[in-house]
């Protein structure tokens, strides 16, 4: 049976001035799977995520979303591909001047011809999914970090995307909220069946929601299946990080 590839990087090279970030990286993520990208600080994890949203282009190589090469697309074509994507940003990126309801309704108001009652029903459904119906009239400034991430997730899921990208979604959250957020990701993915790509430094907590882990180190990428993650899958950087985590020293070296 043929497998559908949702996200793909082919021979990607990227430099910022003299700093080489990616040196021929390749990655394939199958439809419906949950992939985690981990790696050293400055290894280009978030840059990788930006390739898929079209916010950044590689110097060379192909970036494919459902087999369409977005690295060569016009802005208009890119907007069409983006309608299949949902993105949860590190800062949640909610609009300060809009309430929770307005933030989640924004993609529908701007990109669809739905009536106001249809929009309301859809927003309530997504806010219910992330447990934020009670905060419907609150502004982002009045929400905690975890609540902002939930609303950000509701907005990312608003147009029922095929792929959801998460950029360091638990940065700045306490351990309990981090676990709750991961549970929420797993739950929504199970319900909606989207493909997810999560950039994280949250080793090993984030592994519990992963089908596959991509380790980005030394400008290259290594794919690790879930069953061998406990030992670091033979990746020196991951093995070292797991040892440090066990010894309770990770925070001192990151």
């Amino acid at each position, binding site marked *: 049976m043929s497998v559908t590839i949702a996200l793909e990087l082919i021979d990607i090279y990227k430099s910022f001035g003299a700093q080489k970030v990616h040196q021929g990286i390749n990655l394939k993520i199958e439809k419906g799977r949950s992939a985690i990208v981990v790696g050293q600080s400055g290894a280009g994890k978030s840059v990788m995520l930006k390739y898929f*949203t*079209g*916010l950044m282009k590689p110097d060379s190589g192909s970036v494919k979303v459902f087999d369409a090469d977005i690295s060569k697309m016009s802005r208009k074509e890119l*907007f*069409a591909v*983006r*309608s299949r*994507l949902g*993105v949860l*940003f*590190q*800062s949640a*990126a*909610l*609009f*300060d001047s809009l309430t929770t309801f307005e933030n989640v309704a*924004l*993609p529908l108001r*701007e*990109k669809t011809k739905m009536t106001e009652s249809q929009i309301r029903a859809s927003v309530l459904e997504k806010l219910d999914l992330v447990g934020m119906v009670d905060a419907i009239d609150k502004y982002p400034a009045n929400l905690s970090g975890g609540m902002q991430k939930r609303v950000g997730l509701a*907005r990312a899921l608003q*147009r029922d995307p095929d792929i959801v990208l998460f950029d360091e979604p638990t940065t700045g959250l306490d351990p309990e909220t981090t676990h709750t957020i991961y549970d929420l990701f797993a739950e929504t993915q199970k319900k909606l069946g989207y493909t997810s790509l999560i950039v994280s430094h949250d080793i090993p907590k984030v592994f519990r929601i992963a089908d596959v882990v991509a380790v980005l180190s030394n400008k290259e990428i290594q794919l690790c299946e879930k069953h061998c993650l406990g030992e670091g899958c033979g990746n020196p950087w991951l093995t070292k990080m797991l040892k440090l985590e066990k010894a309770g020293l990770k925070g001192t070296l990151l």
Partner: protein
Amino acid sequence: MIRALGATTIQTLVSHGRWGIFMVQVILGSLRMPFKFKACVQEIKAIGADSLSIIVFTALFTGMVLGLQGYTTLKQFGADSALGLGVTITLFSELGPVLAALLLTGRAGSSMCAQIGVMRISEQIDALETMGIDPFHYIISPKLIAGIISFPILTFLFSLVGIFGGYVAGVMLLGVNSGEYYSGIVRALNNETIIPMCFFKSLVFGILMVMICTFQGYMVYMQKAKGAIGVSKSTTSAVVFTSVNVLLWDYLLTSVLI
């Protein structure tokens, strides 16, 4: 040295290219449907209505100073009856458009730049892009349309209040004949170039202010300093570049329209 010169040239070309692309995208965003009526009204309020008090206050005292200085100078030549003419021409052709533009740059332009800069660093603009929403259409085009509408109105208001200020100083305080002051105003406004010049200048300054201030905010990531310092530097640059450009374009437009 040649390498440094080459690098500077490339840098200059790149930044001008970015500016050009930005302007094209803003114009295209402004022409795109649906028209952002509600956002335009909010921006007109932010640029126009919220600036009314500072415009009226500054215009009144500018006009009073013009009346006082004009009277003192004209009196030496026995021409104090031309005070209304002088005040009106000065305000409509020069001080009205320039001072209104500088005031609005300080008040509304800086806020525009900071707002977009913060949206940029907090990934709100990236979020719009990833939702397939054009940020030029959604955020910047209402500001441009509001600038095009608000600037001429506020400039005319500035000039009219300034003329009243000249009346207060010249007629009410210094004793210039009110009929002569009024006939001076009428003579000035009968000049065919004065009102079109005022309108055209204010329109150009409005477009310049919105374009420069939004560009500086949008390109905040080009600042060497990041975060809040980057936004503060962009805002300063926005106010300085706009002010310098207003003065430069004032001369160019005057030389063409006079």
